């Protein structure tokens, strides 16, 4: 028997070593933050910007939510619910605020498109310099784009607008600004015409795409939140009965709760996979600006 166990362990280790060698290819990453962690932090920062909170405030809000979830879980006096509260405290805020974040993004993008239209009109009918129009538009930006107002007073308006849009981490705004940056290679009249006739409608169709994705995600999240709420309420009622509280505190009850959570998580994962939405790309604005300047534009 021992020989068989050793053989199995050997097979397992051999496979693991082979896989590790193939994946690492002899180069062990040193002193670098793993890509998965970097991406996770990046996505979190993006979400915080979408909700309209600073990174610090977002972390505080998350911590507060986690503490509240754990406090509520503690009142149930069921060990498994404490573990569940930890998970819910981590995933809950994003699930609850995802719709608001996406709606805010789309409102911002529509306001930006309106600004682009005004910009193109002024470019076509006046002789004001490009940067002067941009500064004026940024200084008088609508409330959705309030973060652009400080850029309006900057000496290098374009660089300040690029920094502000980059900080907003919105793919749609980035797309709008790229259009402006790249189109600067053309003369005023052509640029105005390009913006009004073609570029703005193209951005609008991208916003429609984002709106479609938002509608689908909102419907999914609403279903998940309502059923999770129903599940939570049902559990709270059942847990109030002493016999059932004893059952949920036992090993068999914990196993039943694990199955309930497992089925729920499996269903949510299947739902998200079945209606997986495509991703709109982010633009490296500084790189676009420098490359366009190099090839004879802005």
């Amino acid at each position, binding site marked *: 028997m021992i020989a068989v166990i050793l053989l199995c362990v050997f*097979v397992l280790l051999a496979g693991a070593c082979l896989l590790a060698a193939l994946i690492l290819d002899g180069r062990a990453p040193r002193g670098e933050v793993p890509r998965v962690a970097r991406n996770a932090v990046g996505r979190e920062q993006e979400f915080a910007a979408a909700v309209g909170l600073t990174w610090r405030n977002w972390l505080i809000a998350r911590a507060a939510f986690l503490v509240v979830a754990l406090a509520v879980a503690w009142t149930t006096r069921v060990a498994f619910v404490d573990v569940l509260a930890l998970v819910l405290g981590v995933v809950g805020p994003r699930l609850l605020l995802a719709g608001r974040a996406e709606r805010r993004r789309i409102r911002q993008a529509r306001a930006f498109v309106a600004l682009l239209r005004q910009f193109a009109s002024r470019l076509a009918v006046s002789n004001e310099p490009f940067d002067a129009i941009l500064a004026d538009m940024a200084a008088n930006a609508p409330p959705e784009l309030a973060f652009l107002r400080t850029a309006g007073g900057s000496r290098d308006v374009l660089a300040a607008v690029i920094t502000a849009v980059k900080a907003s981490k919105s793919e749609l705004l980035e797309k709008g600004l790229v*259009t402006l940056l790249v189109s600067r*290679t053309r003369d005023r009249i052509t640029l105005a015409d*390009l913006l009004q006739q*073609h570029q703005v409608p*193209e951005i609008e169709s991208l916003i429609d795409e984002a709106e479609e994705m938002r509608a689908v995600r909102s419907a999914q999240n609403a279903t998940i939140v309502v059923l999770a709420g129903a599940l939570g309420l049902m559990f709270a009622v059942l847990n109030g009965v002493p016999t059932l509280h004893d059952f949920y505190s036992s090993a068999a009850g914990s196993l039943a709760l694990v199955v309930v959570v497992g089925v729920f998580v499996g269903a949510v994962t299947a739902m998200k996979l*079945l*209606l997986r939405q495509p991703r709109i790309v982010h633009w490296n604005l500084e790189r676009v600006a420098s490359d366009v300047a190099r090839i004879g534009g802005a």
Partner: protein
Amino acid sequence: MPEYAFVILVLAVPVAGFLALRRAGAFVVAEEAAILRLSRRLGRERRPTVADRLSRHSLLRTLDEARDLRHLLLVAGEDITPGAWGLRIAAAMLITLGAVAVLNILSVVTGNGLALSWPVMVLVVVAVPILGVLRLRLRAARLRDNAGRAFGELAAVLAALGSRPPLRNPTSIEPTDLVAMMSTWIDDPALRTIVAGNRWRRLADEAGRTPASESEWFQLIGELYGIHAALRVAEVVRVSRELNAGDVSARYLLTARHLSRERLADLRARNRRAMVTQVVPTIGLVAALMILVLSALAAIHLGGS
């Protein structure tokens, strides 16, 4: 025996119902259902030959694609040879086999008998390479989708720049070419996977083709990687030398707008189709609620007795 018949019936009824619904077009949008009905009627009237039917059979086509592993790896953006990929799969199979064997041994040692029977163990191990190929196919499909979006964006950028060519030498993409620049402007790696280090040339060499002009480069990429948007850009690049800057811009923009409209239409159709299949996971969410209630009822029942 009647028990088996009952289980088969329980399994067969939903499957038959699903197939019947699918045949009736329940999972497609109205416009698509009309096109499907029309194509079926035309198919019956034209009476295709057996060879024709076989060549169009998706299973055969799938097998043919899976056979060409080198092509699939290149399209999926995996920078390894089929041999290295095979070794990786062999390692994953060994790990799975070892894990399942350890699980069985532990189960036997604790006196519960075999956790997984030997045929099931073999099936689990055989599933590893199949899942490996499926993962590759999924990655290839995702690369096609994302690269299609990137080519649409490229068309919009080319429109904004006017008559600037997207690349200079179709046999080798330089970092100063607009296509290469564009691949570094967006955070999606799909276009970079094709352009960086002229990776596309490996596929072109496999196919024994070399592009002679800019438009041929786009045509070649479109055909080799299966990217529809690249073929559309190729059409505009082909005629761009005969047009003035304004007309070229307008054509590129028209292409970019058509591509984004098509993408939106595809997304809407896909989402509407998937709305029907969403019922299945929603039942899962309700099932979780039911399990909670039933476990409580069972506890009361056992406590009472």
